């Protein structure tokens, strides 16, 4: 593994939180990377998606969303029953990109230092020496993250949010791109530590794979019988290319109308009587970043409200908490978000209130 050791990096201000609307105008500030040519960007995306689709059958949507999260510099939470290909998706995504990948199998006895790294006394130099943990990679796959203790979870989550590791008072910067793909099993919850709200909020999107349909499952049985398809996957883009793609996404233009629409969505979740907890400002930021990535994937250099709508459900659903009564009447976070999306005006028909328009 290729460890990059950094000196103290004091970045206390969350730059995105401080100036949300400038995020679009300060492209590639973090990576210092030149954005990619649109055509090349499009080809690279196609290659990645094609690579994933050779492994995971019939889950193009999930693959696209995973790529979206990667390009939007977010983290992905895969939540589903065992055996539908969560880990496979994460691994495939990592494999298609020529970058460092590490995998952590979370267990109750895993310690924080196993994730972040530890300072070891070097007899030869008579000094403490930092040994990076598993988190020092471009793509970190955290399998069954809810099985680890809360302490270990939070160690990972700090890395996720700040892209750095602090051990013994020294901060170590993580490499870009950095993405955590965590999986979680919602069924077998015994002896687990479910992620609390605050930590779920760190993940940009949560998707569930779902069972494949009949044809896809049949084909899977045919092709994946003998060898693991993962072995056949080779890297199609380099880490540098991914960084350039991320820079491209950052340059996507967001108009004021779309920002207003995003804010209106967030406020609607907070004002909805069906919800106990609405979407946080951080989630709004991540929603817009995901929308930018979606727009870029669509081959556009500006965001449409449709892009926001497309990612709203995976980005917001795991952050909001239903009111107890609403949950009793069979509402789900997804259904509430869908109804809010159907209600919040885009602002196209500027003349008039949104209510009462429908007969």
């Amino acid at each position, binding site marked *: 593994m290729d460890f990059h050791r950094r000196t103290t990096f004091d970045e206390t201000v969350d730059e995105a939180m401080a100036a949300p609307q400038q995020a679009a105008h300060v492209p590639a500030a973090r990576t210092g990377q030149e954005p990619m040519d*649109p*055509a090349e*960007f*499009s080809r690279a995306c196609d290659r990645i998606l094609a690579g994933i689709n050779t492994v995971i059958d019939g889950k193009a949507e999930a693959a696209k969303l995973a790529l979206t999260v990667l390009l939007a510099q977010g983290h992905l939470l895969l939540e589903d029953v065992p055996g539908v290909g969560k880990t496979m998706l994460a691994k495939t995504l990592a494999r298609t990109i020529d970058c460092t990948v590490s995998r952590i199998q979370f267990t109750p006895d895993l310690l924080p230092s196993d994730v972040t790294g530890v300072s070891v006394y070097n007899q030869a130099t008579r000094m403490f020496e930092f040994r990076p943990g598993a988190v020092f990679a471009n793509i970190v796959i955290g399998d069954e993250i809810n099985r680890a203790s809360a302490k270990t979870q939070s160690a990972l989550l700090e890395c996720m949010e700040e892209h750095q590791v602090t051990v013994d008072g020294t901060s170590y910067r993580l490499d870009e791109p950095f993405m955590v793909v965590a999986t979680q099993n919602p069924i077998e919850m015994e002896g687990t530590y479910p992620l609390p709200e605050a930590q779920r909020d760190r993940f940009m999107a949560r998707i569930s794979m779902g069972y494949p349909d009949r044809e896809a499952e049949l084909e899977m049985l045919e092709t994946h019988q003998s060898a693991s398809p993962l072995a056949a996957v080779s890297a199609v883009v380099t880490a540098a290319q991914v960084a350039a793609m991320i820079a491209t996404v950052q340059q996507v*233009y967001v*108009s004021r*109308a*779309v920002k*207003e629409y995003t*804010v*209106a969505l967030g*406020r609607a979740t907070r004002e909805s009587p069906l919800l106990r907890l609405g979407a946080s400002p951080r989630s709004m930021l991540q929603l817009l970043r995901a929308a930018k990535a979606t727009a870029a994937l669509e*081959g*556009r*250099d*500006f*965001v*449409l*409200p*449709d892009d926001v*709508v497309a990612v709203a459900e995976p980005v917001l659903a795991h952050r909001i908490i239903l009111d107890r009564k609403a949950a009793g009447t069979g509402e789900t976070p997804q259904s509430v978000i869908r109804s809010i*999306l*159907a*209600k*919040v*005006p*885009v602002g*196209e*028909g*500027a*003349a*008039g*209130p*949104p*209510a*009462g*328009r*429908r*007969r």
Partner: protein
Amino acid sequence: MTLTDTPARGGGGTGSAGDGPDAGRDGAGRGETGGTPGGPAGRIRGAGLEPWAMALSVAVALAGAALGMNGVLRGWAWYPPVLTTVFTVALATAALRSLRLPGVVVSLGGFLSLAAVLTSTFFRPSSIAGFIPSAETLGQLQAYLRRANETILGESTPVAPNAGIVLLICGVLGLLVVLVDTLCGPLALPATSGLGILAVLVVPALVKPQSVGWPAFTAAAAGYLMILACSHWFHPGTGLRGDTARTPGQLRRAGVLGAMALALTLLVQAVVPGFDQGAFPQGSRLTPWGGATGLNPMISLGNSLRSPSGVGRITYASNAGSAPYLRSVTVDSFDGDSWSPDDRDATRRPGTGAIDPGTDVTADEQVRTVTAVNTGQFTSPYLPVPYAPASVSGLTGRWNWDPATLSIKGIDVNSRDQQYVVASVAPKLTPAVLDRATEQPRGLPDLFTRVPGNVPAIVRQTADTVTAGAGTEYAKAMAIQAYLRSPAFTYSLQAPVQNGYDGNGLSVLADFLAQKSGYCIHFSSAMAVMARLEGIPSRIAVGYAPGRPTGSTVSLAGLGALPEYEVDARDAHAWPELYFQGLGWVAFEPTPSRGVVPGYATEAAAPSGASTNENNDGLVPSADPKPTTSAAPLPVPVPAAAGGTATGPEIPWPLLYGAGGVLLAALLLATPALARAGLRRRRLRAAAEDPAAAAGPAWAELRDLAADYGLPPRGSDSPRLFAARLLGSPLLGVPDGVDAPARGAVETLTAERERQRYGRPGVEGQSPGAAGGGSGSASGNETAERIALIRGSLRANARWAARLRAGWLPPSLFTRWRNALARPFTRPLRRVPRPAPDNRATPQTPNGAAETRSGFRGAVRRLRRN
């Protein structure tokens, strides 16, 4: 008016007593559980509280509306039977309904209970067992109805509550109860029931000068609201609720509607030419049986004068040499708010063969005239005769006369279709004779000399000023007449109406003297009151000014052929009569441009008098005393009198109104289409003027077009989503069909719109693989072509009804208007603080008024834009 135990009422009473509490619980219970199971007990127990509450509401509404009839009928004696009828019928229907009988049976029961209660109230002696009508009852009913008919045709508004008219009112109200009950109950149209209540309110509104009055209106409105509330409570599923109960803007909507109705009312009233003229002037009576006009002396006079067509035509022939005044009745008591003739029925004497004038005429010479009158359609209790009648012959029916005023009144008949010959006798009057009559009046009833209390100061002052320096009574009278005929006063039928002193009474008089404009009522009453103030007995005579010759002649036995004259409602007139001892009552003419000034009242020494008044110049020469050989008062026919006072050249008002109405209706009908076309034109022009921003107006037009053809855009529709919906609907045909160009145009417009609204400003179509195929900004012409293409395709695919609606009643336009109207009332959707120009922190919620105002301004701006 006693109430007997009609079965309906009895049943209603016991029903309400026995079922009330149980039924109430039952009703409440049903509200929760959604209907009692149809067990036998439930069937027998009845339908709960609802029928009783509804019946009570109906009864309150109609009985309340009937309060307005006070003033149409005199006093309150008529009200108990009305109450009895209304409540009996209402409770009867409620009782039947609580038994869950079918609607037809309930209505039938209502009719039967109405018949029973009317019989019991009005025809008890002739009925069977007190409430069942017998054959004799039907005969009586006919007589009552005839009586009611005569009352309506013949009498003036505050009519005495005779049995006929009260029976009619009770019957109509009872029928209305059944009608309203049926509307609210089986037909489930509670809002429509307001028509029934309105029918009651219309009568006082048309007939009474002071209209319905607030108690009646309040009671009727309260009853109507109760009806609506009842149907809302008990039938929440019916059409009344609509979607207003779901949306929170109910109050706001009601406010907007109310304000609009109010504004419309005020606006229409200000814009319409005026209710005091035209085809149906204010306060005029409906005369469906053709031309009957009761000449109610004071109240209807103004309306008669203003009537556009001459109804109530009377023809008469006289040997007086010129057309005489026809006098119906006099007004002698000037007390009270509203003057009316005092009938003094007790002292009237029957028979018209020999009428004693009552005053001993001591003049040397008397003038006797004979007049033959044909009243035709003119309907009044009083007989128009030339003063002073000595005998009337040829009348049908029984008549009597008042010794004090010589007014002749029918006992059981009216003046309709009467032909009679009047012999009149009057002293021969000259200024000299009158000037000599300076004795104090003797033997005259007190009522002609009594000065009314609370005379306005202006009347007294004017009287004193005008008569200052006049010695004799005659000189005073002449001075008053000269003052009223001076150029300062103008004759106007409209001025009193417009300035609110149309009518009669002392307060009206003050206004008249201040405004110096009015018609005969005002002039005559002014002179009469001022004369009394100066000690001259006076009264106001009401009748007709001298008419126009018809050109034909009437031959009377012994007199030969006499010239015939005619008068109609437009000649209605009032004039003062002053009493001079030894000469009797002498008529004067203070009204300029009406009637003729009698010879004895034309004063050579008063040059400032009548001659300067327009329309009157022709009178003075003919009023020269020389040719007055016989009659007094000396009438001179003024053929042009009526025409001169009317509107001058004949204007075909009905035709103009009709044409105007048609034009207005056409304009109204075409307004939405014109407005929509104008909007489209403005948008396309805006697109052509600024090609860079062409997508905005083009997109707005596309949305409206789709809305017109049945695909209203939703608030949450992004351009892409809306275009997908439009292309997915059958409005634009199928993909790859003949409509492919239009579908392509939609896609192009969508892409342009997205780029214009959401794209990076200043960058033209350099995005990777843009959907618009690199068409950065279309020129305005292309935009217009695309819109035309889409429009044509929409039209071609729509059915004719949808096409018609899109053309003439475009829904998008109404949505737009509705939104513009609702804008001031809707909460601002976003409370994101706008970037403040002065960089100060703006409060999150600015105060409400400013918010509303800015919202309103925004609405106006939005209306103007595009």
